[in-house]
């Protein structure tokens, strides 16, 4: 068990280290002077305001470009360790860490809720699809849901926006609350936020439902062939009882394993959904930073994404053996 945790932990450290190193090396590996290159792009994009020479000098000292490479790397590691991700070039002097901190709750809220809902619904649907006793209606729902799972999340987002935001304007089309509203700690704010989050969340839920359903269906089909199911039937238990208490329950645990495998896929998909709905999370900020060629913000967000997914995967890896003894035994 200790060996298992240690291995997983080492893998996580490796991923984090790699992510940081890629972040450090890429801008320096490109041909040409990185500062000059970035400023060129910045002014071409119209994002440059203020004293360009001062900006250049500040960027040079920050990246430590006059030092040898290993020294630069140490400086960079020091910055990252202190969560100092630099300042936004486009919104000088806002700090990148603050920008990320402002966006993070929105992304975590939207992504967390949507993933929980679609995981629950999709798992149930997948189970029902595998159960011989489920009706025609379930099977009819299954096909379009699985087809939707092939389509990128944001493509679905565009369609939902056009239908329920424009053609039939039930839901708001942008933002996390009305732009002129100042969010407070009251019910009205909660209502507004829920209302605004509806379409983005729905895009993520609808587009990922099928992925969970397909995985769960496969799992349940496998479980239904096991001996203990035959035994349960032979004991005279009703088909419903056999399905829920014996079939679904045993297939559910490996389904949680799927969560970790698809996590980075879900996050990548959700980033673009935020762009479509101008939702003020990390993804929309990344899009804005790309538009403004705001290098440090882009790097900061990319680093955050890689590190947080590595962390989440590690945590899920720790949880499996606790909930599924089969994994614990297989590890030993």
């Amino acid at each position, binding site marked *: 068990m200790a060996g298992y945790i240690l291995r997983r932990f080492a*893998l996580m450290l*490796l*991923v984090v280290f*790699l*992510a940081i190193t*890629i*972040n450090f090396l*890429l*801008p320096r590996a*490109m041909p040409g002077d990185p500062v000059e*290159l970035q400023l060129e792009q910045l002014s071409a994009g119209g994002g440059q305001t203020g004293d360009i020479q001062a900006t250049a000098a500040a960027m040079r000292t920050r990246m430590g470009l006059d030092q040898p490479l290993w020294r630069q790397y140490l400086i960079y590691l020091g910055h990252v360790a202190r969560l100092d991700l630099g300042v936004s070039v486009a919104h000088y002097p806002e700090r990148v860490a603050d920008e990320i901190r402002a966006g993070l709750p929105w992304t975590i809220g939207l992504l967390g809720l949507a993933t929980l809902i679609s995981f629950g619904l999709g798992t149930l649907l997948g189970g029902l699809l595998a159960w011989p006793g489920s009706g025609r209606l379930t099977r009819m729902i299954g096909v379009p849901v*699985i*087809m939707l*799972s*092939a*389509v*990128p999340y*944001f*493509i679905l987002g*565009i*369609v939902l*926006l*056009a239908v329920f*935001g*424009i*053609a039939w304007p039930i839901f708001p*089309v942008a933002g996390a609350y009305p732009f002129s509203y100042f969010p407070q700690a009251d019910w009205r704010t909660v209502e507004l936020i829920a209302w605004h989050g509806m379409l983005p969340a729905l895009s993520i839920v609808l587009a990922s439902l099928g992925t969970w359903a397909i995985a769960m269906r496969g799992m349940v089909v496998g479980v239904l062939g096991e001996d203990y199911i035959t035994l349960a039937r032979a004991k005279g238990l009703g088909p419903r009882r056999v399905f829920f208490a014996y079939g679904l329950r045993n297939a559910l645990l490996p389904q949680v394993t799927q969560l970790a495998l698809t996590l*980075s896929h879900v*996050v*990548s*998909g959700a*980033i*673009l959904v935020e*762009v*479509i709905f101008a939702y003020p999370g990390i993804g929309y900020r*990344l*899009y804005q930073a*790309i*538009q403004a*060629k705001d*290098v440090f913000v*882009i*790097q900061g967000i*990319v680093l955050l*994404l*890689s590190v947080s*997914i*590595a962390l989440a*995967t590690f945590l899920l890896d720790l949880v499996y053996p606790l909930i599924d003894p089969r994994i614990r035994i297989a590890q030993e």
Partner: protein
Amino acid sequence: MSAVLRQIGREKLLLAGLLLLGCLALVGLLGPLVTDTSLAEIGTTRARLPPDAAHLLGTDTQGRDVLAALVAALPQTLKIGLLAGLLGLGVGGLLGLLAGYLRGLSDVVIRTTADVVMTIPAIAVLVLVATNVRTMTVGLMAVIVAGLAWMYPTRAIRAQTLSLRELTYIDMARLNGIGGLRLVMTELLPNLAPYFAASFVTAVSTAMLATVGLEALGLGPQNQLTLGMMLYWAQYYGAVLRGMWWWWLPPVAAIALIFIGLLAVSAGMDRLLNARTRQDG
């Protein structure tokens, strides 16, 4: 051979997917012959016209004919997908073959690398690379997304190689004095072919998904038209909010059809491969 064809013929899902993708490829190939793709250039038509007889799918804010743009963009997007899929399959297949055949240290290194790269969110690395590239082109785009499309082929081919090399006929071949490269080429590769085909579809899907995502973020080839870039411009100029459905709907539909076709092909292929293993065993 005919038995294999008959088996494929029975898999309706696979056929439907192949048919759908084939139709899209046909539109991409023949479309430019019947539509005037020069109208896909900026400012060649009057802007913001809804569909009519002259412009079947209307025009966009920049003065492009949407139908012409769609016809010009489709082959480019398919090209990126195919190129990146081939690159991903080539690199991934080779690594998988090496890991499965050599085992030992090379296996550990290759497997760990694939696992690590899989954990890093594709979009993050791609964003970094793409922001550091000066001018993006369709070819470069394919190379970049291929960099993250090799892991699934590696895993699939490795697993199959591992189980194949335990089979008796490989032992027979080895006893007959066939070794090394020749063994891989004559005994392993032909039997891996269906798994290569399945991995190719996965690699193309992964690459396409990454491409469309990058393009929607504004990191695609700014001077070339692809389906993702059409969407990017539509989003950039607020096509949805202005109710210009004729502008955003065609690329959305085309992208959705491509992915549904790919899913059908890959699901059909899975069923075919499972049927084969059931028969063998």
